[in-house]
């Protein structure tokens, strides 16, 4: 195995750094707060990574030191002290039983209709005590294994399939891509890895929800998903139940690769803790997501429902390299109270006859600020490229904001590119119509909001769609009237 042969130099390099510091901590479960080369070597050593990965991390770290925090997004937050973050720590034990869980969270589970046994798992209670997820996981894995599908944690993949990692890691989001992606490249601790071999149609929706230990992937998560020629996969990330986390900064990277005739459907429901009514303590979600349609007729489809986080900063993108490839982006972003979201997509058309569709629905309530920021670029070689963009905003309350910042760059005249956007509030007449038919005002608003988002919900897998609807009404609770 390649991994074995590379272990030796790893040992050599990783043992070198300890003369500079924290020797006693080598065997400890946590690294001290702060970021330097030693910490990166420590993480890599802890995870028994091959040399190429350590080099890659260090290269990213060197680059990161030269970079500045991006300031172009419409979001405001106090500067982050990167030396105050613990970049590696062993998984912590959660609350021992449901009784120890925040009653607010339990109330939300109730509203969402989460099954009793799942509530415990979601709240972070040690899983095997109440819910036998292991058995679910293993039956899953067996079936996938028979078809040649690799679906495991990133760390496992590094050990078992280093050749795939070496080939694809950073091929879509390079280590020097942007401030947060570069930080992630240097210090990521775990994530998901998925490889669908040639011609395989993945029989079930893959979900991090079912992957063992998924909840403990840490704040710098790395996901790599490859669909080889003719493969199909539908991947679900996140879950509708609120996720609490003591880490405020989350900088994840997701890379998708679709080869010839392959299709990837990537759905996200994000409902991280948005902070209290004054916006204190919420999660900063700074994510880089990008997919490359490498081969002909390949397709990548992003669907996202964003209701959580104090600040969301993410732009799931598609690079349409292969001829006839297709990129899609469907998004619902909700901000309430003090939440801020700056989200959108990039569609880079390189190949002939490439098509992209963008449907973005933004809902702002309370004092929330919601921004759609998108780029559609048609390169000179992209003959007959098509793009359609629609982004609508709904305003609820007079203190919120909705912003649209599209960039459209067309360098080939055979392209057809269209962008439409509208912003409005829920019509008084629409609410009145519902009320005179016996609906309460709150129900009326829910009905209208769900109608507004229907185009996106339709793209979600069935069970997700139902939960997303409920989630939306919970997120907007109390913002009417």
């Amino acid at each position: 195995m390649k991994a074995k042969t590379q272990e030796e130099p790893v040992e050599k390099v990783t043992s070198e750094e300890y003369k500079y510091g924290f020797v006693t901590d080598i065997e400890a479960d946590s690294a001290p707060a702060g970021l330097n080369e030693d910490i990166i070597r420590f993480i890599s050593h802890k995870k028994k990574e091959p040399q190429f990965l350590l080099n890659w991390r260090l290269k990213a770290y060197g680059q990161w030191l030269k970079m500045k925090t991006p300031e172009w997004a419409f979001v405001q937050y106090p500067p982050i002290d990167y030396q105050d973050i613990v970049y590696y720590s062993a998984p912590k034990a959660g609350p021992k039983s449901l009784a120890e869980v925040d009653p607010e969270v339990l109330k939300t589970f109730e509203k969402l209709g989460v099954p009793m046994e799942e509530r415990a798992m979601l709240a972070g209670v040690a899983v095997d005590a109440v819910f036998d997820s292991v058995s679910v996981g293993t039956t899953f894995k067996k079936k996938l294994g028979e078809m040649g599908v690799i679906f495991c944690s990133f760390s496992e993949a590094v050990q078992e399939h280093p050749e795939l990692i070496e080939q694809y890691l950073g091929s879509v989001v390079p280590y020097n891509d942007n401030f947060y992606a570069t930080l992630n490249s240097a210090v990521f601790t775990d994530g998901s890895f998925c490889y669908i071999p040639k011609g395989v149609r993945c029989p079930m929706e893959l979900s991090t929800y079912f992957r063992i230990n998924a909840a403990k992937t840490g704040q710098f998560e790395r996901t790599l998903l490859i669909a080889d020629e003719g493969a199909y996969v539908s991947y679900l990330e996140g879950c509708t139940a609120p996720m609490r986390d003591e880490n405020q900064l989350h900088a994840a990277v997701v890379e998708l690769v679709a080869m010839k005739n392959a299709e990837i459907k990537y759905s996200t429901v994000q409902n991280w803790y948005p902070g209290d009514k004054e916006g204190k303590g919420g999660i900063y979600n700074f994510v880089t997501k990008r997919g490359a349609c490498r081969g002909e007729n390949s397709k990548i489809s992003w669907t996202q429902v964003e209701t959580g986080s104090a600040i969301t900063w993410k732009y799931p993108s598609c690079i349409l390299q292969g001829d006839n490839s297709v990129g899609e982006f469907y998004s619902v972003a909700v901000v309430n109270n003090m939440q801020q979201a700056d989200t959108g997509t990039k569609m880079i058309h390189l190949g002939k006859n490439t098509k992209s569709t963008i449907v973005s629905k933004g809902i702002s309530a309370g004092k929330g600020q919601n921004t759609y920021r998108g780029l559609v670029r048609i390169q000179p070689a992209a003959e007959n490229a098509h793009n359609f963009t629609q982004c609508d905003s709904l305003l609820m309350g007079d203190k919120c904001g909705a912003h649209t910042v599209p960039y459209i760059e067309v360098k080939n005249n055979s392209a057809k590119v269209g962008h439409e956007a509208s912003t409005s509030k829920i019509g008084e007449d629409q609410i009145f119509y519902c009320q005179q038919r016996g609906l309460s005002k709150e129900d009326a608003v829910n009905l209208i909001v769900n109608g507004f988002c229907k185009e996106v919900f339709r793209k979600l897998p069935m069970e997700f769609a139902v939960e997303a609807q409920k989630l939306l009404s919970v997120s907007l609770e109390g913002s009417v009237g």
Partner: protein
Amino acid sequence: MSNLMTQDLYLSAFTARQAFLPGQDQAWLKDLRLKALEHFKQAGFPTDKLESWKYTNLANNLLKMSLSFELPKVTPSAVTAQLKKRGFEVEKAHVMVFVNGAYSAELSSLKTLPKGVVIQNLASALAHETVKTYLGQVASAQKKAFTALNMAYFTDGLFLNLAAGQLLEWPIHVVYLSANASQTTQSHLRNLIVLGNDSRAQVIEHYWGENVSAYLTNAVTEVVLSQGSVLDHTKIGQEDLKGFHVGSIEAKQNEASQFISRTFSVGGALTRNEIDTTLAQKKAESVMDGLYLSKGQQHVDTRTFIDHLSPNCNSHETFKGVLDGESTAIFDGFILVRENAQKTDARQSNKNLQLSNTAKVYSKPQLQIYADDVKCSHGSATGQMDEEALFYFQSRGISRADAKKALVYAFAGEMVERVPSEYLKPALTKFVQDWMGGAS
């Protein structure tokens, strides 16, 4: 004196140039000029690192030029005849002519004006109280480097002031001519338009170049609209292909005022048009129309900013572009609806027709909305000639070339059709047709 356009040059040349600038006896103006120079010192020439200049890089073109500060005295060909040739019935307008940044009384023809109407060249109106009150107030030197440069170096321009209730019958047609023959030049032109309550005027800013070497026109227009006043403003850009044009129009609108702004642009190696309006009081209305036609290596950059500050205001913005050759067009439209601006109705649309597959279009229609009871929309579309429509024409015996012209005119002509002015319509029709005559 001819040096490379650098920030240092403008900072150091000022002392020497000052003596040639108007308003030496006005202390307030001298002060404004120095302050503006200071702002320019802070800002420097814009680079493509600035979001608002992302797609226009001056470093490889304008800033590589050596432009003289001298204003050559040239007597151009009969301007009246030129205007007639371009389709204007000049007998029905007040005509003002500026040549290479200086006012030419002999080429201008101002008709008798009623009391309460001031149409003058700005250099001779600097002692006017209104000028002192408003100059540099709307188009602040703090925001834009070229506006700062303009304030420091401006030589002349239009000053229009209407007293309350004055309805100006004929349009004011202002020609800014660059005719520098063998010498490179730069003109920094400044216009100030102040309309009193319920007054009304039509102004045409017309930029063109003939018999020229490389030149820069840096024009700033400030508009103050009092309650209920209406300004119909049209800017026609027919600069020479050796010319660079950087222009900024900034308006402040009070209650129920109406600002109609049209920009028609065909000329220039590089054209940058900025149009900003602030709807400062309720029920103000703004219409911004524009058409840019480009070919060859031309670069045309349009940036608009509509600031909805008050409730019950409307803004309607429509910009269209036709691009041929290897030309580049940029449309960056920004609508800001502030917290207080409830019942806003803001619409924006940008449509581009690409005639060649080497032309580039960058469109960036932005909305920033902080009020909830609003109707805002924007749209952007970029596409090519409809093959089916061409086929339809051809199947009826019309040549492909003629069919193309008809379709381009159908697309671009909409902007001309919307112009109500009898004075402008024939000339603008010709404007579009002449351009198509040269297009492929």
